[in-house]
């Protein structure tokens, strides 16, 4: 009973704050409405006794929204982020796409013949999750992580306006580097 109340309460909060994302007129409010929605989803995962996954969703989403709010406010052109502004554009197409997506996903969730449970859940679901994620796929993970790091570094290098020649001079021998801002470790 209590679980049902919590589940439906959290579900309502998740949907209502997701709607709020498009209704409010401020970038910060939209961002944090989205964060509230994700936190409600994370807490719903806790109801399923997926402690680690639930807490992780809360952690990642709050962090992501905090960083996103910053970047949106910092990099939006003509500085509208500090002013009240509409959070929707291309309303008709967006409405059609989102209603379609909702109907398809909702119908899928309701119509798929879910299998009934065989056996009991593992006593330590966090360890079981780690085993099933990292056990057989360890090789994949080991390959994927350096590739991801390399992608991030490459992306930053390609996006940065200044190259090492700007920093260290034509012969790469200027020390300390000519940076617009001093680093904190005396370089």
């Amino acid at each position, binding site marked *: 009973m209590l679980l049902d109340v919590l589940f439906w309460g959290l579900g309502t909060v998740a949907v209502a704050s997701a709607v709020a994302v498009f209704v409010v007129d401020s970038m*910060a*409010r939209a961002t*944090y409405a989205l964060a509230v929605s994700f936190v409600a989803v994370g807490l719903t995962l806790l109801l399923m006794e997926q*402690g680690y996954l639930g807490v992780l969703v*809360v*952690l990642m989403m709050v*962090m992501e929204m905090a960083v996103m709010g910053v970047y949106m406010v910092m990099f939006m052109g003509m500085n509208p982020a500090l002013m009240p502004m509409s959070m929707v554009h291309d309303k008709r197409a967006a409405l059609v796409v989102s209603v379609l997506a909702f109907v398809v996903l909702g119908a899928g969730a309701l119509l798929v013949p879910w299998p009934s449970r065989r056996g009991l859940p593992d006593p330590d679901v*966090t360890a079981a999750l780690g085993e099933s994620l990292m056990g057989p796929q360890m090789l994949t993970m080991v390959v994927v992580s350096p590739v991801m790091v390399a992608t991030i570094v490459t992306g930053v290098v390609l996006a940065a306006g200044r190259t090492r020649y700007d920093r260290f001079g034509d012969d790469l021998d200027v020390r300390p580097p000519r940076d617009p801002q001093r*680093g904190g470790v005396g370089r």
Partner: protein
Amino acid sequence: MPDTVTAAGPWGALLAGVLLVVLAAAALVAEGVLAARARGGPVGPELTRPLDETLRLLRQRRRAPVSADLLLWRVAGGGLVVVALLMVALVPLGNRVVADLDVGVVWFTALDVLVWALVWLLGWGANAAYSLVGGYRFLALALAYELPLMFALVAPALAASSLDVAEVAAAQDDLWFVVWMPVAFVVFLVGVAAFSVRGPFTSPAGADVAGGVLCELSGVDRLVARAGLACLLVAGSAFAVPMFLGGGAGPVLPGWLWVLLKTAAVLTLLLALRRRLPVVRPELAMEVGWVVLLPAVLMQDLVVAVVVAVRG
């Protein structure tokens, strides 16, 4: 040291809250006294300063700048206290704990990320330039301290093979983690000072930006925000006890008293150090965080992982 902890119930939760507020007030008194002695002023008025400030701010009329985002602003100020309460809920006091989560360490990390959002919103909500500058300073510092802080918490969890705070404390029966993971301990303390805007990390609320995130706050709003930051300092110090200082382990005295004594010791250390360290500029903190702290704490994690693997 008992291996298992039992839930403390609603009265225990209330007691934890009261202890948090009392310790926060004590920390503020200590801060005031140290500041008064440093400038050679009278110490007497500092002893009742938190009480006087509370009474003054409760009587003060709340004001807000034009078109401030009142909802987000006030949520942010009040949220800091809530985050601190949720943090101390994880700390076992003797064999009682308010929230016995099997992923308590991750929960703590999620909470300290929540502080990012709250402090930035505190700066944003006021709709004032200095506040916003303060909010952005905090985020710049956060990008510097957060990853080292997270990896610092990996070390004790790894050594205890558990994310449960009580089990991490119980795993230190023979040797406290602070002894063989000093780097992680120091980095954790840096993180605590940073997320409670203390010591070298006061620039988000610095005098050079007229108080930064705190600058437009008045009345009860200012009270809860300042109390929240002080409570965060206490909550972070309290969390260091089960993580690095053996929890309630200690001779003669009962476990709960040891937890309080160790929390007070960590607090004293942080407060004593803050007067000896200069305030760091956010852009300098960034490079220190990523070039010094992060590799250092990763090496610490590696050492711990090797020790755990060798011990089996």
